[in-house]
């Protein structure tokens, strides 16, 4: 299987007042194309920091990240914007749907930044795949938490990304909806999308194809 993300001795330090915090202390791993990986660990273990670096939202202090064999280290901000726009779909814990936009408009928002027009049949397919065909014209306030997260997943998929990166996507959901979301993410990996999910819930992490456990910024299990 081909590696789509590789990290080498990845470190991330940041300042908190006068103190230097070592968020990541040498992460080296490879994630395969189409793999469904859960990054798990306690709060403060560095899992979200790792996801942000893999998702081109943040830069490592040292070490290297290769996305499809291309190093992110030498890319400028505009290039990182382009990688996010074209290759990565993000799902957040708090959904971040725009309250003034309908479900369909929220889903197609990334196309605006990508300079593409939405294809009605593709949108129909996307809505169907997340089970929200009947919610197309609804506003976020008319949806349940689980439905909002499914809209966020559809939004992450609209640009046909190679990677889906989800940061605690089930943290605000009940157990039934959490399982549905994980099943949905799993179905995406089966379609060849590399899915990386950060979760603090070990039981949910077990549902992923692969688990990486972090502690104090280091991988303690799952390499």
């Amino acid at each position: 299987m081909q590696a789509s993300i590789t990290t080498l001795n990845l470190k991330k330090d940041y300042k908190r007042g006068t103190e230097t915090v070592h968020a990541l202390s040498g992460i080296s791993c490879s994630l395969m194309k189409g793999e469904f990986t859960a990054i798990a660990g306690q709060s403060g273990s560095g899992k979200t920091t790792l996801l942000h670096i893999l998702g081109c939202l943040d830069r490592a202090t040292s070490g290297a990240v290769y996305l499809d064999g291309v190093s992110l280290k030498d890319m400028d901000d505009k290039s990182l914007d382009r990688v996010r726009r074209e290759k990565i779909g993000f799902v957040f814990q708090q959904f971040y749907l725009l309250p003034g936009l309908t479900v369909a408009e929220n889903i197609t928002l990334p196309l605006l930044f990508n300079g593409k027009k939405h294809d009605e049949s593709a949108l129909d397919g996307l809505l169907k795949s997340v089970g929200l065909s009947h919610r197309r014209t609804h506003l976020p306030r008319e949806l349940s938490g689980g439905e909002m997260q499914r809209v966020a997943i559809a939004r992450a998929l609209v640009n046909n990304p190679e990677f889906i990166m989800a940061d605690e996507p089930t943290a605000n959901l009940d157990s039934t909806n959490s399982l549905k979301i994980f099943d949905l993410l799993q179905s995406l990996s089966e379609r060849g999308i590399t899915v990386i999910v950060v979760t603090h819930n070990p039981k949910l992490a077990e549902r992923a194809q692969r688990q990486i456990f972090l502690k104090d910024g280091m991988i303690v299990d799952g390499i």
Partner: protein
Amino acid sequence: MTFFTLAIKNLLRHKTRNVLTMVGITTSVVVLYSILSFNEGFITNLNAELDKTGLHFMVVPAGCPHEVAALVLHGSVTPTYLDAHIGTTISRVAGDQIEISTSFLVFQQANEKNQRLDLIYGMDFTTAAQLKPWWRIEGKMPSGANEILLGHEIAAHDKLKVGDTYQLTNSGTTYVVTGILEKTTTKDDAFVYFDLAEAQRLVNRPASVTAVGIKLKNPAGMGAVTEKLSKQIPGIQIVTINQILTSISTLAAAARVLSLSVVAIAILISAIGVMNAILMTVFERTQEIGMMRAIGASKFHIFHLIVNESAILTSLGGAIGVLIAIFFAPFIEEFVKSFMPYVPPGTMIRFQALLAFACFLFAVVLGILSAIYPAAKAARISPIEAIRS
């Protein structure tokens, strides 16, 4: 979806705040259009008013040029007089350059019957047809000392008709109204016109005139003629119509500067209001902007979106402002006139397509400029910090 529709949907999320911000812009544009249009109308009407005097220059007693301007436009009373024979002297000095030389005497006379001061204009009726060719008279021009011509306003106010009689308080003479001016919408409407000699008798100044109006055969030779007159006739002052225009403009300039200052302050307050509203939006939507950056929006996309929102807000405010200024022009004009020391007759605030477009464009540019700082701030938002916040 486009940036435009996204911006509109974002604006609709805070209707009250954005409507209030827009009202600020609308008010500024109403004031801007009205004042600029009023100023232009003022100058245009003033020029037209002076053109209607039919004269090239006036010979007046040496003194303040502002008094002369007031005399020409208001028919006000000046405290000094010229000798009645000055007309003959002027004709002699200027030779055959003069087409018309007409002396007149302007004063105010108590009218106890109507409890007001009447404006009396003593003139040579034989030159009236040449000096005021646009006059339309109901009846006929007076030809004797006991005959008078009434301005339209006076006749309408006193309900006098041709053939009626008119009497002044200090004069035992009864005058016959032989003619009534049709409405000119100029100061001419407010006068009672007497034969010059009769007017001199009424004010007990048989050898005085207020001024002599001169129309030249060739206006191009005005410089040489006025120079010659100034050098050879002592105690006179020559005021050309252009100088009168300048004097009036100077008199009105203070009011105009004040009004333009009000416009500038209104615009500044509106711009700050827009900037504040957009900044609030940016602060409130920090996480949302962070999310947009995360899903692929570049810094330029965010900048573009915020500027769009501001420009839509101000262009809508500007368009409404221009429409209000055009449709409510008569009311606004009356309001502005109440603060002006002198306003020439005629409509001041008119529909001017170019000015309307310029005011609208100004509102759009104001929106863009006011949004630059908030938009730059929004574009600098780090996605990671926004999401963490």
